[in-house]
């Protein structure tokens, strides 16, 4: 197989951007993706089988066929989970990765989010740390992501994000009914509501049309291709250069090393299950936090017997995601307008600055509900079945507003990804094992966020509310077909909630003994391997992390291209 300048593993939010930046700069690139390339025609509007509701499986990968992960609870008990089961902590496996089917909230982090340790101090037992780069370092690349991927919204009423050089390229979608109900209430409480930034076309942009505001949004591929991800923006540009070859259904096995410890390429199983080797000058790992750690740990050699870049046992540590809490409000009138994407109003008043709390998170109304989502979200005391349940569905499906948000986790080095010593996937590759939890303080913050959401809903006129706090989340896990298995994980205190916002496993830092990559995402000790995805996030912000993943990808690619010397990479 022809040698190339760079092989990228994973065609998601980050991998697609790196492919485009490198290919445009003239490097020859092979982009490997374990999943398939879906299109708008694969929307299917199947509310039982998508990336958000997986009753009948994941629509956009991975499939459940011999693809397990092992989850270890605090008692040391092992449980096997399939990709469509919650504790597996799935994101997606397809061209575009999570950005094919995401809700498309495209948030910038706030400056404090890069300085968590120096802002708050690290609580004992945590691994809270500052990023080695700042908001200012990333600001031009946030802007690049907003313009190249395409973001609509309006930050002008948000006093908490630092002034920016340019506004967003598209105005927000017209407000829905929930916005109109929640905005005046937030203002009465002294909060600062504004339009959520969304990677969704509100007007024609990038050669594609605008959002038609349907009911099937978060978790689905967009039927009219108005939702922006790497699959319909940067990856087509990369391919158009003629310098990038995309190979789908190719599962990376390991990164190959030479005698001096430098990477020489990637071994992978192609779509027919045949083992192939792609030799390359640079290897870029962009598989999302859990799988990127797994690939490095599976890349063992004489110089790296416990995995590439893992000399100090740091690969896989500090796994984090988001603690989602909030509240449901029940109203005396219809709040539902059947206009997607539903989520349209947010506040950042509670991200930072509460005395006694180390951070917080953004709060926003939730994406448009499908009936399937209301089944277990009726007012407290409603029976779970029978005539009363059916009547409550009629009474409340159109009269509910949910406000929820991602609480920034306080990471712990004990929350980690390792390799299972015995279980292998269908290609014979050792699978990921997930264990440990984020710091307990995260849950205290999450429960306070839930109360704040409730207060907002009551101010807006809710006649009844229900908290979606930690206790409720734990209870929710005890309902449903996987209840028995999940119940044995006992409560929240067992395993870190990672999932689609997973991050942190290849921490960025200046010290090779306490981090995995340097400030430009280059593996400590192996100068031609880069990890570019959410794995490098030191902390994960109180926001959906995708735009930050994209900004870091542009930032790291910029450095990589500038240091490229034509035939090889010199640091």
């Amino acid at each position, binding site marked *: 197989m022809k040698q190339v300048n760079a092989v990228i593993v994973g065609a998601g939010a980050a991998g697609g951007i790196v492919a485009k930046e490198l290919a445009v700069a003239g490097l020859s690139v092979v982009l490997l993706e374990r999943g398939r390339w879906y299109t708008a025609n694969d929307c299917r509007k199947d509310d039982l089988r998508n990336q958000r509701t997986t009753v009948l499986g994941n629509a956009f990968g991975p499939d459940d066929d011999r693809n397990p992960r092992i989850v270890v609870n605090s008692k040391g008990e092992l449980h096997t989970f399939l990709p469509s089961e919650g504790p597996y902590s799935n994101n997606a496996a397809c061209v575009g990765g999570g950005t094919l089917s995401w809700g498309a909230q495209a948030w910038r982090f706030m400056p404090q989010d890069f300085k968590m340790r120096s802002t708050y101090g690290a609580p004992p037992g945590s691994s809270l740390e500052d990023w080695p780069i700042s908001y200012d370092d990333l600001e031009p690349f946030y802007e690049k992501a907003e313009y190249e991927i395409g973001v609509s919204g309006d930050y002008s009423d948000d006093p908490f994000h630092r002034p920016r050089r340019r506004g967003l390229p598209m105005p927000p979608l017209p407000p829905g009914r929930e916005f109109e109900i929640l905005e005046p209430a937030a203002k009465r409480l002294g909060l600062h509501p504004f339009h959520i930034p969304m990677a969704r076309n509100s007007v024609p942009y990038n050669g594609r049309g605008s959002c*038609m505001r349907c009911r099937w949004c978060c978790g689905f591929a967009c039927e009219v291709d108005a939702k922006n991800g790497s699959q319909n923006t940067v990856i087509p540009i990369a391919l158009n250069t003629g310098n990038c070859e995309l190979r789908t259904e190719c599962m990376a096995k390991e990164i190959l090393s030479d005698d001096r410890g430098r990477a020489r390429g990637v071994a992978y199983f192609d779509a027919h299950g045949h083992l192939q080797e792609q030799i390359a000058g640079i290897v870029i790992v962009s598989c999302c936090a859990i799988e990127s750690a797994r690939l490095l740990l599976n890349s063992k050699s004489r110089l790296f017997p416990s995995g590439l870049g893992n000399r100090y046992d740091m690969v896989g540590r500090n796994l984090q995601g988001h603690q989602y809490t909030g509240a449901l409000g029940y109203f005396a009138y219809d709040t539902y307008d059947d206009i997607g994407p539903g989520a349209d109003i947010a506040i950042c008043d509670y991200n930072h600055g509460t005395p006694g709390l180390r951070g917080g998170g953004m709060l926003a109304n939730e994406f448009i509900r499908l*009936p399937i989502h209301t089944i277990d979200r009726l007012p407290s005391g409603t029976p779970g079945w*029978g005539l009363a349940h059916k009547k409550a569905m009629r009474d409340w499906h159109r009269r509910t507003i949910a406000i929820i948000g991602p609480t920034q986790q306080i990471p712990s080095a004990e929350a980690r990804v390792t390799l299972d010593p015995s279980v292998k996937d269908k290609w014979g590759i050792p699978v990921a094992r997930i264990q440990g939890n984020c710091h307990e303080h995260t849950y205290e913050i999450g429960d306070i966020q839930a109360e704040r959401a409730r207060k907002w809903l009551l101010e807006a006129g809710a006649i009844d509310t229900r908290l979606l706090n930690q206790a409720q989340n734990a209870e929710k896990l005890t309902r449903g077909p996987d209840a028995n298995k999940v119940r044995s994980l006992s409560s929240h205190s067992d395993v870190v909630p990672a999932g689609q916002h997973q991050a942190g496993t290849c921490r960025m830092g200046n010290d090779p003994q306490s981090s995995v990559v340097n400030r430009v995402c280059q593996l400590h000790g192996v100068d031609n391997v880069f990890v570019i995805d959410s794995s490098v996030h030191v902390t994960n912000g109180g926001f959906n992390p995708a735009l930050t993943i994209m900004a870091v990808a542009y930032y790291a690619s910029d450095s990589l291209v500038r240091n490229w010397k034509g035939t090889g990479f010199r640091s």
Partner: protein
Amino acid sequence: MKRKSDERAEQLTRRQFVAASALGGVAAAIGCRTGARGNWEFLNDGQARTLAAICDQIVPADQFPSASEAGVLTFIDRQLVRHFRSHQDAYRDGMEQANTMSRKRFGRDLADASQEQQLEVVGALERKANPFFELVRTHTLEGYYGTPRHGGNRDAVSWRMLGLDEPPLLGRAQYDPRKGSPS
């Protein structure tokens, strides 16, 4: 203000729905025959009658169709040889237990028991924290309120019940890709 979809939903009363279903052969599929395996992929006809009784307590009929009338058995039956394969034993045992309980208490199969008796048996399954109960509750509600594509929620009857336009109107009729989005 009454929405158009509400009016339409009310027009589709349960009686009309059942009548329409019977014409389409649905009544046959929910177990008028005994013995042979009927049209099911996993269930036998006896099990189908038992399961219909259970599902119809989870989503009973009122002015809108019950679970089995809306095709939930078809949904569960199909998935028991597909995505719910791992639950085959739980279903087999659970349906048998429910039937045994009914025979012991009332001297007849669950399917032949009265509404009140069926409610009592399903309630007992829940109180015993029977793992089968949690499965069948969840699957029934998913079949009833989920997409019609998989056999349940036939003719989107639950969506109409909730006042949702079917086929969806908003975000479609007004869609013109050359202009901005509809508000």
